[in-house]
């Protein structure tokens, strides 16, 4: 699915959380939203999901109607629901579920659980899981309906580095294979550098840079966004790496 944003803004009362965001992303691509805390990343992703009122224009495959097949994973993974992992993931297919859960639904969910390495947790209560396990469960839920647009708010923030790697590789594979448009908020610049096709760097509600990884993850732009002086260098395999050195003297 192709997604186009034109002058998108979000306002909470008198506070302008997001202003004048323009971006375009094609199917099969991952776009990473980067920026410091409070820069408007979550508000932007919630506006795209239709969860907060917005100004500006959103086009899904050139059409203004928001499609139903959007997979959304919020940042908050806390829950008190007395449900099993399988039931939580099944809910991702909510529009397709009848009173009796069919073999097809179960098969689809089990495939996802296996892909994310959590098939063994299927019968566990979701409240008994660790934060990282819960994050994987809600990611599976977002993927369960085979969405064409995937909106992820910090999907790997609670995961260990092996799971971060596996999840991002899985997301890239799914995004490419199914032609999904994936927009994800990330805090790890190196993960973004490795897996994103495009990066949008935000600060104070505005986009300060957008484009391919090399054009956005420059020392100057990283310093402008995060107020740290970074070391940006290439690993032996050519991958871009970013390490913060110290707080910016221009704060």
């Amino acid at each position, binding site marked *: 699915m192709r997604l186009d944003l034109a002058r998108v803004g979000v306002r909470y009362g008198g506070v302008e959380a997001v202003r004048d965001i323009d971006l375009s992303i094609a199917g099969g691509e991952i776009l990473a939203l980067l920026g410091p805390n409070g820069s408007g990343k979550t508000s932007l992703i919630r506006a795209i*999901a*239709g*969860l907060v009122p917005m100004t500006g224009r959103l086009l899904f495959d050139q059409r203004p109607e928001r499609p*139903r097949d*959007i997979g*959304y*994973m*919020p940042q*908050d993974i806390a*829950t*008190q*629901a*007395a*449900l*099993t992992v*399988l*039931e*939580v993931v099944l*809910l*991702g297919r*909510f*529009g397709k*579920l009848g*009173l009796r*859960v069919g*073999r097809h639904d*179960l*098969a689809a*969910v*089990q*495939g996802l*659980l*296996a892909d994310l390495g959590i*098939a063994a947790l*299927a*019968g566990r*209560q979701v409240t008994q899981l660790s934060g990282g396990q819960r994050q994987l469960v*809600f990611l599976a*839920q*977002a993927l369960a309906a085979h969405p064409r647009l995937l909106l992820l708010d910090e999907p790997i923030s609670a995961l260990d580095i092996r799971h971060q790697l596996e999840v991002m590789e899985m997301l890239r594979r799914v995004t490419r294979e199914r032609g999904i448009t994936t927009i994800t908020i990330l805090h790890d610049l190196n993960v973004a550098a490795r897996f994103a096709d495009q990066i949008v760097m935000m600060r104070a509600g505005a986009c300060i840079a957008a484009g391919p990884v090399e054009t956005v993850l420059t020392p100057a732009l990283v310093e402008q966004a995060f107020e740290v002086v970074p070391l940006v260098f290439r690993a032996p395999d050519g991958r871009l790496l970013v390490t913060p050195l110290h707080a910016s003297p221009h704060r």
Partner: protein
Amino acid sequence: MTAAAEAVASGYHSLMARRVMVLILGLAALVASFVLDVATGPAMLRPEAVIRSVLRLAEDRTVDAIVWSIRLPIALIALVVGASLGLTGATMQTILNNPLASSYTLGVSAGAGFGAALVIVFGQAIPLPEHYAIPVMAFVFAGLACSGVYAIGRSRGATAQVLVLAGIAFLFLFQSLLSLLQFVASPEALQSIVFWLFGSLQKATWPKVGIVAAVLAGCIPVLVVDVWRLTALRLGDDRARGLGIDVRALRLRALLVVSVLTGAAVAFVGTIGFIGLVAPHIARILVGEDQRAFLPASALFGALLLSCASVASKAIIPGAIFPIGIVTSLIGVPFFIWLITSSRKVFW
């Protein structure tokens, strides 16, 4: 299908089988309690005589008269009112994301109590016999309390927090109005109000059973349509909305069902506390919160609790009948405390 897929599928099917088993056992306990309820009273009947009379297997005029004219309506109204209260409690705990929610939380029962007291104190001004006017006004004021909460919810976004706060405001409003009525009431009227507020199944008749059962039967399909939406709502508003659910409309729709069900349930038997709070907790421990199992289990355990309370109300002092509202609280409170302090493990 791979071995892992089969393990997931068989795990799911065994979970569903456990839930069905809980419902079957609950139903068996309900049948036993129902028979005991019909058998218990000033003239004790043998359970097999009750079963024969109910199934019309044998004719014994005395037993039939006791069973069909007096005890069956009482035992049946305990079932339908208990199921209604269990269902409303479960729905409210889900839509308000609050384990303390029940008909009391939204002031619905307090509204019904005020409506009934209004008739008792100013009955002569209402052109209806008192035994009709009390349930009608109790239903109307339960509906008014819910409509007030609904109106505030509509104007302020219908979040769980807004609805709970609005409900508590109406609870205090109707309790204050009820206190005012008690203050101005004659000693006889005051006694009638207090007796109504205690709750009683003894004035049950076949038409009353029919009305509550019809309302219950009418509300169930409305909730069945929303079972997956309600289950998704347990994961929070944001996630439910992310799944494409109109959370505001869902809450308001469920609130309407709760209002009608509570109004019908309390109109004929008075304000029976505790069932709506405790039945969903038992259901949650035994079957979890997949609403396909949670809602029927809450209704089932609501019916079972009220039926058992009905038996207890007749058994505490032989020959006398304790007000059912007092019995549900006296038995229910210690049971509930045991439930929330001891059940760290869940069955499902």
